[in-house]
Structures are given as structure tokens and as C-alpha cells.
């Protein structure tokens, strides 16, 4: 019995254990079931709302930040490729952070670049191509920055797969700014974002008006005042810029807008300028090496071409130079180049970087011929566009250092002293010129000289600073800088000689030759064919007459041979020959018929005279420019043509904005 009772108790115990196991199994089943139900219910509600929104929100932040980075880097560097690389790096860095923030949810994140359109009613071509990701169309009245991406992410721990975030065929984010009206002291602009949603809460600090200050000669900026905001995203901005306007209507300026995300758009109130050119001289030789400065003014041989009253030159906007274009009504694309000069435009530094923003130290150079009556300087809005060089007839041989085009060949043939040879193309006939002889001492180019701009479309250039062995007698601390340009298509080259006086010491300049020719000039001509040669008692001829109204002798030529060269100067340049010494001018040495361009001529005066400069610690710069041209065979008419060309440069009769 004992044994029996004892077994019964054990059976009870066994039963209890069995029941416990069954209950525990039930409990486990219930727990698993409850867990799956929790996934199904709570997961779909709680995590979709908060976790998915958080992931999506963070992705959006990163994308917006990357777009902001793209636009900021683009604005700073001017290099869209570099900006895109930086922005993609930023995007990847940001997404890594998003990934690391949600690893607990088993996040898997992918993104891809997709095509999308940024077209509007005016610019149907605008798009973000697959692979570009970031894009900007800037410097037009309506401009835009955008990013196009498609995201997919999984949150495996809560059973969420293939959640998509995209712009649904449109850009993921954009900022769009349209200048609707640009008038003195007033700007009307509209600002919107993706989905054409107007942005209404930008404060004044988000706007920056950038304008060219003609008196200061540089771009300045100011923060405008918001006077009104409309519900469609239109802002009325008040600023202090009064002009000058184009055509009495449009004020050319740049507007920079930066939204809350840091995304920037740069808009310009016009997209180019249309110039109507009145050529006073026509003919094959009438080709002008035009330099356009930052304020928009056209210059030829240092003189600004006149604009008809009622019109003003519009400034060239500070945009990457590779976005600039020049076209003409008859010939399509006009070859041009952009050059860097020093801040005072005294000496050239070379071709500009394509990414450089056009600045007051830049010159846009092209050759204007008499068939170009309508000309556009404009710019493209695609920040990725490159400048395709349009080849001209210009060629530079880096071995022989000859610059040549269809008509001439020129090079520095001697550097001790510095001498320049000019000849008709493919012939042996040449003329030789020496530059910068001072106080009877020849120059040299021992230090270094450079062909700063080579093989380009509009012109080549040679630059040298002259040296004088042992210095210049009686003129210490004096420097001479020579620049020769070789334009395409023309029959001429230009020269500029700058005399730079550092007046830390007193000095005297007794004689200065800007230019001397070594070939005889047996015949001379002057305006209307009148030869004005004043006989000089000592066998020299002074070829000047500064008393005649309008100036007469701004050219001289050797034309009676089969080949000849000529010297042509504008009236302003000619006047510079008398800025130091009234005895200066163009002199012809009768015995050898040498031509001398002499701002100071004391040959027959005692050396103690001359021009003296007291020490006053200033730096003074004097500039003489002119052009040297070649022709083939004794056509007096051709010389006349050149005279007309230089005497009567074109006028700009109208400057119209292109919008």
C-alpha cells in the first residue's frame, strides 16, 4: 500500500508537470501569435507614421542639403562638374548618417538618378538628365535649381519593404525664381518650389541684389526691402539702384535668392544684349579688334565706341565665362575670347579660366567686321555648357614663335634690343620695328617675354617688360611694358607701349621712341591725300600738325612699293604723343626714311632740357597705342580705307535687352 500510495503521488506530480508543459506550450503559442498580430497592427500604424516619416524626412533633409551644397559650390567655384561631385559626396555622407540612424529598423536604402523635366513655357529644353542628379539653369530672368532622384527603402525589422520616395516624374526638389520686372528701385519676382508651390515666407535676408556700380567700376550687392508679398509667391522688392537702364526700361541686375533649405538661384534680369551697329566705314579692311569690358562698353584701340543717346551699355554679368556667347545677324557665331588682365587693366595675364566669373579685370574680345550690323552678346542658362572655340585664321607656331593669319606674319625677332618683324603672309617682304628706346638707349628683353595668349580664336598676344642694361640714364625707376596683339582676320596688329614712372626718384626723359621703323618710308600720306611734312632744319621731317582741327596726321604709310606697312593711330592715341612734350609726334628721319613715334623728342635740343619729373612718390603710367598694318602693292585707296576705319569707328545705335 505504501508503495501504491507513493506511486499515486508521483503520478499526481507527473500530471501536474504535464499540465504545466501544456499550459506553457499554449502560452508560447499565444505569445508568438500576439507578436505577429503586433507586427500586423502596431507596425502598420505606429511605424509607418513615425519611423517611415522620420526616414523620409531625413532623406529629404539630406537631398535638400545636397542641392544646397551643389548650388553654393557652383556659385563659389563656377565649376559645375566640381559642384556636382561635392554635392554627391554630401548626398552619400548624409545618407550614410540616415542609414546609421535607423539600423535598428533594418534599413536598406537605395537611390537612383532619373530623368526629369524642368521645362516651362519659355524654356522647353530644360531638364535634369539621368546621371546628372543636380542641375541649375541660371542667369536668365527665370532661373531654376533642382535635383532629381528616386529612393527606395526597406525597414525589414517592421516588415516594411519597397517604400518609394520620388518626385513622380518631376524634380525631387527645385527652387524657381522669375524676375517679372526689373526697373529702377523696383524688382518684381516670383519664387516657387517643386510642384509650383509658391514660397511665401522668405525674409529680406534671403534676397540679394547684385548690380554694377559704374562709378566704382565693380559689382556691388545690397539687401532689398520687401514691400509686398502676394499669395502666388510674387514679391515686390525695393532697392536703391536707379540705373542706367536699357532702352529706358529694363534695369540689368542679378538677383540671388537663397531659400530655407539653403538652395540658391541666381537670376539676371536680361539674358543678353542686342547691339545695332552703324558702320561708318565699310570694306574688307574695316575690321575692329573690339574689347568689351565688365561695364559692357566696347573699346577699340583704347577708345570707347559711342552709343547713341537714349541707350546705354549693359554690364556683362559675373557669370562663368564659358556660358558667354557672341552672335551676329549675318555670320552666326562670332569667335571671341575672355582674357584676364590686372585689376587696372594695365597688363594682360592670359586667357581666363572657363570657370572664372566675368569680372572688371576681364575683357571679352572679338573681331567686328563691317557686315555685322546686328550683334548679340548673350549667355546660355545651362551651367554645364562649355565654350566651343570657333577657329579663325589665326595660327601660332610655338617652335618658331611666328603669329600669323591670312594676311600677316609677325614675331619678336630680336630681344636685345626688342625688335618686331611684320610681313605679308607667305612672303619674305618684311618691315622691322624697334620698341621702347629711351634716352637714346635701346631696350632688351633679357628677363622674360611671353606669348601670353596662344592659338585662340580672337587674338594672340605678346608681352614683354623691357630692360635697359645699366638702367636708363637720368631716368631711374622707369619701366616700359610692351604688348602686341595679333588679331584674327585683320591685316593689322596692334601695339601698346606703357611708360611707367615710379617717382620715388627724380628723373628726366630727354628722348623716347615708342616705335621706330628700320625700313625706309619713302612716301607718306595723310588725310585726304595731303602730305603734311614739315621740313626740319637738320634734315629731319616732323610729321605732325596738332593745330589742325580734328587732327590730320594719325597715319603714315609706305605704299609705293609692292609691299608696305602702315602706322595708324586714333586721334586720342595721337594726342598722347604730345602729353609729355609739345615737340613730340611722328618724326621721319629723312636720311634713312626711318619712322619714329616720339612722345618726347629732344634730338636737336640740349640734353639738359627734356621732361623732368620730381620725386613725389607716385606711380604714373603713360600709354601709347596704334596699329601696324600690311598691304600688298601700292593701293592708295587701301590706305585711305584704313584711315577712314580708324578715324570713323562704328557707333552703337541701339542696345536692346534680350529677355
Amino acid at each position, binding site marked *: 500500500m505504501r508503495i501504491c500510495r507513493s506511486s499515486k*503521488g508521483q503520478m499526481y506530480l507527473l500530471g501536474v508537470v504535464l499540465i504545466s508543459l501544456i499550459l*506553457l506550450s*499554449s502560452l508560447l503559442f*499565444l505569445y508568438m501569435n500576439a507578436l505577429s498580430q503586433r507586427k500586423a497592427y502596431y507596425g502598420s500604424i505606429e511605424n509607418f507614421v513615425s519611423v517611415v516619416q522620420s526616414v523620409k524626412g531625413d532623406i529629404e533633409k539630406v537631398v535638400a542639403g*545636397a542641392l544646397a551644397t551643389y548650388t553654393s*559650390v557652383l556659385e563659389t567655384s563656377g565649376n559645375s562638374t566640381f559642384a556636382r561631385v561635392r554635392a554627391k559626396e554630401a548626398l552619400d555622407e548624409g545618407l550614410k548618417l540616415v542609414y546609421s540612424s535607423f539600423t535598428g529598423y533594418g534599413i536598406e536604402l537605395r537611390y537612383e538618378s532619373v530623368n526629369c523635366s524642368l521645362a516651362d513655357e519659355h524654356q522647353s529644353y530644360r531638364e535634369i538628365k539621368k546621371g546628372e542628379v543636380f542641375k541649375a539653369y541660371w542667369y536668365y530672368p527665370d532661373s531654376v535649381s533642382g535635383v532629381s532622384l528616386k529612393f527606395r527603402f526597406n525597414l525589414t525589422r517592421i516588415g516594411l519593404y519597397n517604400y518609394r520616395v520620388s518626385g513622380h516624374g518631376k524634380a525631387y526638389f527645385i527652387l524657381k525664381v522669375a524676375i517679372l520686372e526689373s526697373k529702377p528701385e523696383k524688382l518684381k519676382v516670383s519664387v516657387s518650389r517643386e510642384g509650383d508651390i509658391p514660397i511665401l515666407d522668405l525674409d529680406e535676408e534671403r534676397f540679394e541684389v547684385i548690380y554694377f556700380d559704374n562709378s566704382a567700376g565693380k559689382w556691388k550687392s545690397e539687401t532689398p526691402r520687401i514691400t509686398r508679398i502676394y499669395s502666388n509667391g510674387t514679391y515686390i522688392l525695393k532697392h536703391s539702384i536707379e540705373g542706367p537702364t536699357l532702352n529706358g526700361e529694363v534695369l540689368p541686375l542679378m538677383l540671388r535668392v537663397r531659400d530655407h533649405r539653403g538652395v540658391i538661384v541666381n537670376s539676371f534680369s536680361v539674358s543678353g544684349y542686342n547691339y545695332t551697329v552703324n558702320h561708318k566705314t565699310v570694306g574688307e579692311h574695316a575690321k575692329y579688334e573690339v574689347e568689351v569690358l565688365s561695364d559692357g562698353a566696347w573699346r577699340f584701340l583704347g577708345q570707347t565706341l559711342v552709343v547713341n543717346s537714349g541707350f546705354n551699355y549693359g554690364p556683362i554679368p559675373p557669370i562663368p565665362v564659358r556660358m558667354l556667347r557672341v552672335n551676329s545677324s549675318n555670320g552666326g557665331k562670332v569667335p571671341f575670347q575672355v582674357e584676364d588682365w590686372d585689376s587696372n587693366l594695365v597688363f594682360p595675364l592670359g586667357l581666363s579660366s572657363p570657370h572664372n566669373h566675368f569680372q572688371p579685370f576681364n575683357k571679352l574680345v572679338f573681331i567686328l567686321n563691317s557686315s555685322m550690323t546686328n550683334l548679340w552678346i548673350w549667355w546660355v542658362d545651362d551651367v554645364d555648357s562649355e565654350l566651343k572655340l570657333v577657329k579663325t585664321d589665326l595660327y601660332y607656331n610655338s617652335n618658331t614663335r611666328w603669329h600669323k593669319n591670312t594676311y600677316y606674319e609677325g614675331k619678336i625677332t630680336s630681344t636685345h634690343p626688342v625688335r618686331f618683324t611684320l610681313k605679308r603672309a607667305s612672303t619674305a617682304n618684311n618691315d622691322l620695328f624697334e620698341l621702347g628706346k629711351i634716352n637714346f638707349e635701346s631696350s632688351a628683353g633679357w628677363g622674360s617675354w611671353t606669348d601670353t595668349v596662344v592659338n585662340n580664336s580672337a587674338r594672340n598676344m605678346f608681352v614683354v617688360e623691357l630692360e635697359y642694361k645699366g638702367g636708363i640714364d637720368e631716368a631711374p625707376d622707369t619701366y616700359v611694358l610692351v604688348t602686341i596683339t595679333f588679331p584674327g582676320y585683320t591685316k593689322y596688329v596692334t601695339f601698346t607701349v606703357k611708360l611707367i614712372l*615710379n617717382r620715388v626718384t627724380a628723373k628726366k626723359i630727354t628722348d623716347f621712341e615708342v616705335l621706330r621703323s628700320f625700313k625706309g618710308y619713302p612716301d607718306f600720306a595723310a588725310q585726304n591725300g595731303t602730305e603734311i611734312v614739315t621740313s626740319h632744319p637738320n634734315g629731319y621731317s616732323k610729321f605732325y600738325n596738332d593745330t589742325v582741327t580734328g587732327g590730320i596726321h594719325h597715319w603714315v604709310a609706305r605704299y609705293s612699293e609692292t609691299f608696305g606697312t602702315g602706322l595708324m593711330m586714333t586721334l586720342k592715341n595721337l594726342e598722347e604723343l604730345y602729353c609729355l612734350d609739345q615737340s613730340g609726334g611722328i618724326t621721319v628721319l629723312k636720311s634713312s626714311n626711318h619712322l619714329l613715334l616720339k612722345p618726347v623728342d629732344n634730338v636737336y635740343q640740349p640734353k639738359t632740357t627734356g621732361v623732368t619729373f620730381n620725386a613725389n612718390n607716385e606711380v604714373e603710367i603713360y600709354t601709347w597705342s596704334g596699329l601696324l598694318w600690311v598691304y600688298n602693292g601700292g593701293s592708295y585707296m587701301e590706305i585711305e580705307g584704313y584711315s577712314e576705319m580708324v578715324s570713323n569707328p562704328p557707333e552703337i545705335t541701339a542696345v536692346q535687352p534680350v529677355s
Partner: protein
Amino acid sequence: MWSGRCKGGWLRILEVLLAIPIVAFFILAAANLSPFTSPREYSSLHLRNLALSTLSKMDERGVLTNLVWSGDYFNLKAELETVLPPNIAYNLTVYHLTSLNVSQGKEKILEKKLVREVSVSNFKGEGSPWTESVNYYVSPSEVSYYVQAEKSNSSIYLVACSDAPGWWITGYVPQTMAKSLKEYLVNYYVNVTIINDTSQLYSYLFEDPPVNATVINCHGEAVPIPDQYVSGGNPNWIQYIRDIRGNTLNYNWTWVSIVGYPFYYVSNRNYENWKAWGVTGLYRVATDGLSVFATNEKGSGWRTRDIGIVYMTTVALEAMNTYGIQFSPYQSSSRALERQWMVSNGWDVELLLFDDKGTGYLPVAVFRNGGGRFIHTGLVRTPEIRVPVISLLALTQPTLHEILMNLEQAMKIIVLEVSYIGGGG
């Protein structure tokens, strides 16, 4: 008998004791794991969404980031109280991520740490009644790239002595060049000093030489020489250039030559009998100047070569793009410096800014000798002053506010805790 009854009773007791916790545990577990949601959780979810959407909306409008990053917590509080319903108590805390150098054994590691900045709340009571909280990342209002650099504290001296002429800087005088250079450099360096005359030159650089200074010689091929290095009207230029070399090596200077053949002349206008090229106060020491600087001795001869048109290296292009100083990547180099000679005299090439075209002559380069550096700019005159600026920037790489490039450090984290006022949670 007694013992048998006793045993049976004990088993029953044991049986009951086992059953009670099992059943109790089952009931509690079942109750706890029931799929039906409690009212408390519904309200929590609502609160959490409310908190999250409040922050999202504020962020979308740019208000949140502006107020948080400008530190305008007064208006942040006002904004929150406008957006949140009146029956919600909140506590918003702003943290930022910071990186600390922490010693771990012999090594130093970068540890990231959350640092509390501020809390704003409308809750006046005690304790922590919060029902829900959400975390929210706030990047700066302009998550972008600024031109404005984090300025370096190292000192830059622009040598532009009015009493000493320059050479190969035509178009400039030293003072105008210094002014132009300063316009670029002040964006990246806190201390940019123009040395206006030779007595300042001696006092600033040779009496008590600064450490880690960058000295840019705006006189081109000439170096102004103070009166202290002139005796009997003759320049003691060997000792002077040795002192420049000594200070460069011992005080970790960076000496910048902006154009042409370095140390080719010394200059001081107080000595009118010194004349070279007709320039008063210019004394020609020729190639021995660079020889003394590089080797401490004279006699190394001509060490440069004209290698014509040269092109920028990627290092320089990167610096141009980064700092937005763009000029032609093609330049003419007539004074490219012999690499082998410099290296054999202890000057390693640290950076090459323009390609040497395989000639072994470096157009523009940074050389390093111990802690001292020498930047050679062997281009033609007139100098393109942006070249030495780019050389310096490529060397020192001033940090720009590339916020997204370092997103973590640029993030602030907001924790918004919420609860219903008067319970209900």
C-alpha cells in the same frame, strides 16, 4: 499510516502550490499579450504623432532650424505654444553632437558625445510626467557650403617696404601688390600684416622671430634688406639670407617667392649707389642669393630653366575650385626650379602646383625642409598674384563650412517630450 497520510497531503499541497503560479502566470501573460490595444497606447500614439508632426511642420517652414541654430529659444517656445494644443505639456531639449579626443591607452580616439544645450518647457510642476517623446534631427538652416572659411590663426606677413624697390613686379609697386594679396588672404587668415618699411621688417621678423609665420615677399626677385644688415654702405646679404634661411628652418616659417628667380637682389632705397637696371636701391646678388637660402653657401650657380607653357596639377585645380579663385591653368614658366638640386639640399617637394613636363624643373612648388617651407613661383612676370594665393591655400587648406561634408557634427538633435495636461495619458 500517519506517515502515509502525511505524505499524500504534502503532495496535494505541492500540487496546489505548483498550479497556482502556473495558472496565475498564464492569466497574466495572456492578459498582457492580448492583441487588444489599451486606451493608453492609442493616446500615446496620437501624442507621438502630434509631437512629430509639430516638429515636421515647423521644420518645413524653416522656423525650427532658424530658431534652433540662431539660439532664439524665446521665440522657439512661443512658436511651440502657438502650434501645440493648449492641453499639451511639453519639454523640448536641444542637444548637439560633439567630437572629443579621448585617450585610450596610448592611442587617442575620437569619441562622439551628445551635449545638452538648452531646454524649453511649459511645465511648471515637479518630476517627469511625460507620456511620449520624439527625437528630431535639425540640420542648419542652410545646409550648404560657404565661401567664408574658418580662418587660420597662423600669421601672414606681406613684405611691402616703401623704402625698398621691387623687381619683376612691373605694374605693381610692393604696396599695391600687398593690398591686392591681402584682399584674397583676409578671407582665410586672421592675422595678415603688411610690413611697410625695412625697420618694421627687422623688428617684426628678425628681432624676435615669430613662429609658424608665412612671409610673402611682394618685391618679386628682390628682397628688402634692413639697415642692420648693411655696413659701410655694403649689404651683408649673405648673413641676411642666412638669417632668413635660419628663421625659416628654426621657426617653421613659410617663405613665399611670388615671381622669377628668388633672392636675386636685395634692396633698400637708403643706399642710392646701389643700382641695377636703373633702379635705385637695387643690389644684384644674382644666383648666390638662392644658393645661400637653399644650401647656406654661395656658388651653386644658375638653378632654373625656361620650360615654356605649363599646366596646373590636380592639387592646384582642386584648390581653385574649392576656394573659387579661377584663372587660366596655363601659365608660362621661365624660372622653373631644379628639383634634384633642392632635394639634395634637404628641400623635399611637398606640393607641386604646376606640372614640370618631365623636365625635373618645377614651375611652382612647395618645398619642405624640416618645419620650414619655401614656395617657389617660377613664372614669368608680371606676376599673377593668384598663383601664390592658390599655393598657400592648397598647402594650408583652410576649412570651409562644408556642413554636409561633416553632417554629424553639423546636426542638432531635438527631443520633444509631451503629455496631456491633467492626465489622460
